[in-house]
């Protein structure tokens, strides 16, 4: 079948001009087949005189039947205003809109304030997603470095994905507001000329085209990364993945289904974090200098942070196993020393603030390991080699793995220890 494409230029945003073009093309045997962001597609057939109309009403079964009775046939959707293109073989058929006022009324319905507000809300939601993933990387070791990129690939991809969709949604909100203002002005002053802001329309057109092209591949990569369980994916919970999918579906098609799934999944996902569902940490493969021999994976989401130091086993297979243990031991001691210092520091700052005194670094010096130990309590737990805790932190070591975390109750302390070392 022969096909022809025609670029969608600014002047074709005027319905009258578009209809004129479609009718002229039909006379030459080119019939509209579909529309995209930038092009109109035509197919070749016998030349015919057709009447084209663009309609903006909500489609119901009743309305569809009435249009059919009047001889109108649906061609395709058009633009972002819920426009539908119809043709009629009877060129003397009644126009769909008897006057300009009602046409504007039905267009403006697509830009009503509730639509704008719900769009602003999804914009905020996307911003929140960017923040969640950003925060996550920010609190890991060596944030925003190439080294970190390889550990947290999925998170970086998600940041990319959500930043992009946030920008798109933001532009869409501006677009909706611009169009609302444009059409309400026109509705109130039907006889005055209102300039159309083509910049906003075109920016939105381009972005939404890029959106359909890029967003699905990015999301697919993210999901594949999650499912094949890259070392990078430490704790991306199923709940949060489902929310991402749900929001994506929401913005693209099935709104009701997606809203319901978000409502169900959001509490579920928060609940799953609250029950300490921390997936397994896998050893990572890096060079054997001390700084990179362990990987500090600080997971922090919904205001809890857990640090683990995972040692690369393979580097130490050949007679240097002892070194690995030494490093773990040094790290363990170092952690206790800095933990003790931070603890004293925070206490001192509180006290000084009460009496309004300034503090300086010399007020809370680093103590030696033995001195620091005296400020901590020993925890006897069957699952770990050694463990110490103070009022809010626990630090344990077992088999070259050092784990430190904040706790709020003894129960929570035990749950996390059991989770890691069972």
């Amino acid at each position: 079948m022969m096909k022809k494409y025609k670029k969608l230029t600014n002047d074709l945003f005027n319905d009258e001009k578009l209809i004129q073009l479609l009718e002229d093309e039909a006379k030459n045997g080119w019939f509209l087949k579909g529309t995209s962001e930038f092009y109109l597609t035509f197919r070749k057939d016998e030349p015919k005189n057709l009447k084209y109309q663009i309609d903006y009403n909500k489609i119901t079964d009743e309305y569809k039947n009435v249009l059919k009775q009047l001889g109108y046939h649906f061609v395709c959707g058009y633009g972002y205003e819920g426009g539908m293109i119809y043709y009629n073989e009877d060129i003397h058929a009644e126009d769909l809109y008897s006057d300009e006022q009602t046409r504007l009324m039905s267009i403006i319905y697509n830009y009503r304030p509730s639509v704008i507000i719900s769009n602003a809300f999804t914009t905020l939601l996307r911003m929140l997603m960017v923040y969640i993933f950003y925060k996550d990387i920010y609190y890991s070791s060596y944030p925003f470095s190439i080294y970190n990129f390889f550990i947290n690939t999925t998170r970086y991809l998600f940041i990319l994905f959500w930043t992009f969709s946030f920008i798109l949604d933001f532009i869409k909100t501006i677009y909706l507001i611009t169009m609302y203002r444009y059409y309400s002005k026109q509705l109130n002053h039907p006889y005055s000329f209102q300039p159309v802001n083509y910049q906003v329309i075109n920016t939105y057109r381009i972005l939404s085209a890029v959106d359909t092209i890029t967003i699905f591949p990015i999301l697919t990569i993210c999901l594949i990364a999650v499912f094949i369980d890259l070392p990078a994916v430490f704790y991306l919970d199923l709940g949060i993945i489902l929310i991402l999918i749900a929001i994506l579906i929401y913005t693209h098609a099935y709104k009701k289904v997606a809203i319901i799934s978000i409502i169900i999944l959001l509490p579920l996902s928060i609940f799953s974090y609250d029950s300490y569902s921390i997936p397994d940490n896998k050893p990572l493969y890096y060079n054997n200098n001390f700084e990179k021999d362990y990987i500090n994976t600080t997971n922090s989401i919904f205001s809890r942070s857990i640090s683990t130091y995972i040692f690369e086993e393979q580097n130490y297979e050949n007679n240097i196993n002892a070194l690995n243990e030494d490093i773990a031991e040094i790290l363990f001691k170092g952690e206790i020393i800095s933990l003790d210092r931070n603890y004293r520091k925070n206490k001192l700052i509180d006290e000084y603030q009460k009496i309004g005194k300034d503090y300086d670094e010399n007020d809370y010096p680093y103590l030696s390991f033995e001195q620091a130990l005296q400020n901590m309590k020993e925890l006897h737990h069957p699952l770990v080699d050694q463990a110490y805790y103070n009022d809010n932190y626990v630090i344990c070591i077992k088999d070259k793995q050092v784990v430190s975390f904040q706790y709020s109750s003894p129960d929570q302390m035990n749950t996390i220890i059991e989770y890691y070392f069972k």
Partner: protein
Amino acid sequence: MARKEFETLTPQMYYILLVLMQPRHGYEIMNEISRLTDGQINVGAGTLYTLLARFEAEGYITLKNIVDRKKIYKITNAGKRKLKEETDKLTLMLLHYKEVTDDEKV
């Protein structure tokens, strides 16, 4: 904005409200208006369904029932008041017209 929309009724608006004195569904309304005005005034399907939704939101008409997925509407008291108001306006205009043209003749 919503208030301003129906400040003056267009002929289409006027006739839609008028024929809804009897409960009717969309297609019936169109046919009835054509019949009543001998085809002088026609209401496009797009215009009709836009107006039905807006009139309903404004409280001029109300959904009576749904038969065969067709919504049957009926005018409300508010709608009748609006129609009366508009008719009075038109009657006045007609009177003035007669007055002025009669004066000219004399």
